Each structure stands twice: as structure tokens, then as C-alpha cells.
């Protein structure tokens, strides 16, 4: 053991630097925002309406993602399809795509003159600058996290269990509901929380596609961005709220993962 210890700094020093990179900026936000005005800013009309809109939209986003994403994740995990790896790549793409690309793409798709938007506008539906646009932008960037988690969850289920259920005469829906869902509930919950957290933080796609109007499309990240330009108190207070909420939620997902390992 003695021999190994002389080179441990090669590992420790770089790690300290990179942890500092993550930790210091977060610390700075807390240090700057510790002042008597914090609650005044955190409970200002602007902050509260942004907070409310953020929570509502990311919850709607997560619910829509679960409804539409679970069947897709099931198909990707258990059916043999020809172009499956291409579909998986497509779904993972938004995770690495810059949100500004997403916003631009959404605007030229669902915008008034867009690919689909021009048809929608004939029907009297106009998506940009509405709360629905916020949800669409959030789904575009955040749904992949849920689908990915659910797909891995479904894949992890023992194939023999499915065969046994098949022998018992269960149809595909019964198998899914009675066997797969209970067994993968943790993976699904984990994915849902990740999607919710990512949706809460969505900014780039939203500002391009949904615009900025208090109470309609101005979510927390948007209020922080505009607050950065004028009212740094509100920006800092909202940043603290976002950091705290994100930390708690990530903590919960980690706990779920840990419990999963033990069970």
C-alpha cells in the first residue's frame, strides 16, 4: 500500500480543480444572494409568476412524455425492428444538440410559416409564443432522458419472466401492465424526474421558439436571463431556487438508483 501512495496526487490534484470548477460558481451564487433582500426578490411578482409557469409547464411536459414515451421505450426495448438503432440515435440526439438549434428547428417547423405551422395556421392554430410552445420546447430537449431511462429499464427485465407470462396466456398489454410496469417502476420514476428537472431548466429552445412574456412564456431561466440584465436580485434569488430544487431532485434519483442496486 505504501508504494501506491506516492503517486496519489496525480489523481487528487486534477480532481480538486474540476470539483472547484463545479462548486465555486454555485457557492458564489449563494454568497451573493445572502442578503436581507433575498425574500423580497424571491417573492416578487415576477419571480413567483415565473416559478409557477416553470412548475406547471415542466409537470405537463413530464406527463406528456410518460404517456407518449413509455410505449416507444417498450417497443425499442423488446421488439426487433430494422431501423431501431437509427431511431435510438434520433431520440438521443436532442440530449447533445445545442438548445438554440432545437429552438430554431422548432420555430421553422411549428412557426406560422413553418413546415407544419403553415398547415396548423389554416386550422387557426398558432403555436409560437404560447404556453404550449414552452411545453413543446421542453419535451424536445427533455423527453429523451425519460425514454432512454425507460428503455434501459425494460431491457433489464428477465426475458424468462415474459416467456412465463406468455405461457400463462397473458396478452401483450397484460404482460406490460402486470409484469413490466411494476418491475421497472424505479427506472421510469428516475427517468421522469430527470425529464422534469431538465424541463425546469430549459432555456435556449424556449427563448427562440416560445418568446418571452410574463405569465405566458416567461419561465424561470428566462426571468433569470432578463434579470441578469436589469434586476440581478431577482436573477440571483431564482438561481438559488433552481439550484436547490435541482439538487433535491437529483438526490432523489440517486437514492432510487441506490435502492435499486440493493434490491
Amino acid at each position, binding site marked *: 500500500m505504501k508504494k501506491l501512495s506516492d503517486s496519489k496526487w496525480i489523481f487528487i490534484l486534477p480532481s480538486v480543480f474540476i470539483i472547484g470548477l463545479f462548486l465555486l460558481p454555485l457557492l458564489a451564487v449563494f454568497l451573493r444572494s445572502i442578503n436581507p433582500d433575498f425574500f423580497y426578490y424571491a417573492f416578487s411578482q415576477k419571480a413567483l409568476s415565473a416559478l409557477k409557469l416553470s412548475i406547471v409547464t415542466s409537470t405537463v411536459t413530464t406527463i406528456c412524455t410518460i404517456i407518449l414515451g413509455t410505449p416507444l421505450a417498450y417497443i425499442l426495448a423488446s421488439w426487433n425492428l430494422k431501423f431501431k438503432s437509427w431511431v435510438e440515435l434520433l431520440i438521443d440526439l436532442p440530449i447533445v444538440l445545442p438548445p438554440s438549434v432545437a429552438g430554431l428547428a422548432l420555430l421553422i417547423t411549428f412557426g406560422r410559416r413553418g413546415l407544419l405551422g403553415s398547415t396548423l395556421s389554416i386550422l387557426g392554430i398558432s403555436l*409560437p409564443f404560447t404556453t404550449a410552445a414552452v411545453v413543446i420546447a421542453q419535451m424536445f430537449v427533455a423527453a429523451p432522458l425519460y425514454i432512454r431511462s425507460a428503455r434501459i429499464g425494460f431491457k433489464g427485465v428477465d426475458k424468462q419472466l415474459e416467456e412465463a407470462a406468455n405461457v400463462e396466456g397473458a396478452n401483450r398489454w397484460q404482460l406490460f401492465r402486470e409484469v413490466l410496469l411494476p418491475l421497472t417502476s424505479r427506472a421510469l420514476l428516475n427517468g421522469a424526474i430527470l425529464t422534469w428537472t431538465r424541463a425546469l431548466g430549459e432555456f435556449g429552445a424556449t427563448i427562440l421558439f416560445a418568446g418571452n412574456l410574463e405569465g405566458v412564456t416567461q419561465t424561470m431561466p428566462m426571468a433569470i436571463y432578463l434579470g441578469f440584465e436589469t434586476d440581478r436580485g431577482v436573477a440571483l434569488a431564482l438561481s438559488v431556487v433552481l439550484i436547490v430544487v435541482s439538487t433535491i431532485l437529483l438526490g432523489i434519483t440517486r437514492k432510487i438508483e441506490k435502492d435499486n442496486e440493493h434490491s
Partner: protein
Amino acid sequence: MKRFSALISLLAFFLAGCNPAPPAPATVSDTETTATASAVPSTSASETRTLTVFAAASLTNAFTEIGERFQIDNPGVFITFSFAGSQALRTQIEEGAPADVFAPANNTEMNALVDTNLIARDMPQMFLTNKLVVVLPADNPASITSLEGLANAGIKIILAAEEVPVGKYTREVLKKMNSQFGSDFGQKVIANVVSNEDNVRQVLTKIQLGEADAGIVYTSDAVAAPELQTLDIPLELNIVATYPIAPLAESNQIELAQAFIAYVLSKDGQATLQKWGFAPPQ
């Protein structure tokens, strides 16, 4: 341990590779031919210097062109622009962003930096004026033919957010319009707003994309988008936005910064600004 030292020498090798090569001595003819009207006195023509200019989003086209000309006149000088809403730029400078020149769209942001001694009090100079204009998509989908049309129920308007200078001016102009078009005119227009964009270029782009029926931007922005229809706002209802420019007190390129500002104020610089729809300072 042997492996460790090998690692160190490898690292040293890479670090050495990163060092810039010593500058080649300039030939006499080089330095002579580069001396033009706007050239900066420099010790060597091959020495590269970078000037960082923080400028209001509305200056994007004009300053990009001015920058290109300035670089041609001053070999070895590179200008990096950061175009954004004036408030964002001011905040970035206050937080220590390394800018050499600051050109916001109004005096408020300039004065804020003067008050915190980031810019010397006698430095800011007015270098242009701008006013507002209504822009409509090329096909004018809401058939707006007069300023009164902005209050028509159900149309979609995009403005700059109140937080940025152009947004502030826009609301001033709407207030002035109340006197002519009825006391609730401004309110009706605001009720039609679907988005408050964080900078004026976003307003312009979204009108170009046809995502809204009308927007209010600077005349200079309308020049940058000739395909759009415009509705002039008469002088008595309009505002005159004056743009100041100044070097940052802590710039380590103060001489170059002064030269750039002198070029902006020169005949050439002003001609470029006018080409992009700005008016000379009054």
C-alpha cells in the same frame, strides 16, 4: 516512477509546442506601406493585437463593416465584437469581462460604468442617433396600413423587452401616440404583444420569419432587412436615441481603442454608419 517522469516530459513537450513562435522581424517596406489615415502608430507591423469591442445589438452590421475596414487599414490588428443587449454588456463589464471599447444604445448604461469608474468621466462621445420604425412582414398578413392599425384586436406584435433601451424607447413612443390616437392606444398595443424579446435583433428576425404581424425596431435595423415593409413614425411621436462610445479605463489597448473610436467618428466611419440607417449625432 519511471513512467511518471515520462509523463512529465511528455507534458513539457506539449506545453513547449503551445508557445507562440517568436515574431518575425518586420521588413522596412512593410511598416511604410501600412501607414494610412486611420493607421495606429505601432512598433512593428507583424505584431498582432486584439481589440475587444462590446457594442449594442443594433450596431451589428455597421460595426462589423467598420471593423473590417479598420483591420484592413491596420494590419496585425484583430477586432472581436460582442454584440448583445446593452444591459447584458454592461453587466458583463461590471463582472470583469475584458472589453476595450463600449458602445451601448443609450446613456444610462454608459453613465452606470462612468459612475463605477470603469470608464473615465470625460471619455464618452456621442457618435450617432437612431429612431424607431414599425416593421411588418413582406406580405403584411394583418393588413396594417397605418400606426392606428397596431391597436387592432387580435394582431400579434413583438416588441423589445422593457429592460433593453429600444424597449424603453418603444414604450415612450407608445405613450406619445396616446395623445394622437386615444388615451388607451398604448394599452391596446401592449395587449397585442406576444413576446418581449431580449434584444432588438430578435424582434427583427421574428418579423422576417413572419411569426408576428408587426414589430418596432430602430430604423437602422429596418435597413438591414430591406424585404420588410415599414411604417414611419412621425418625428413628433418618435424619439431620438443617441449612442455613446468610450474606451474602458482598464483597457490595456487604450491607444488602439482611441484609434478605433476616432475611426468611427471619422468621415469614413460616419459614412458606413449612415449606409446602415443611422443619422449623425445632433
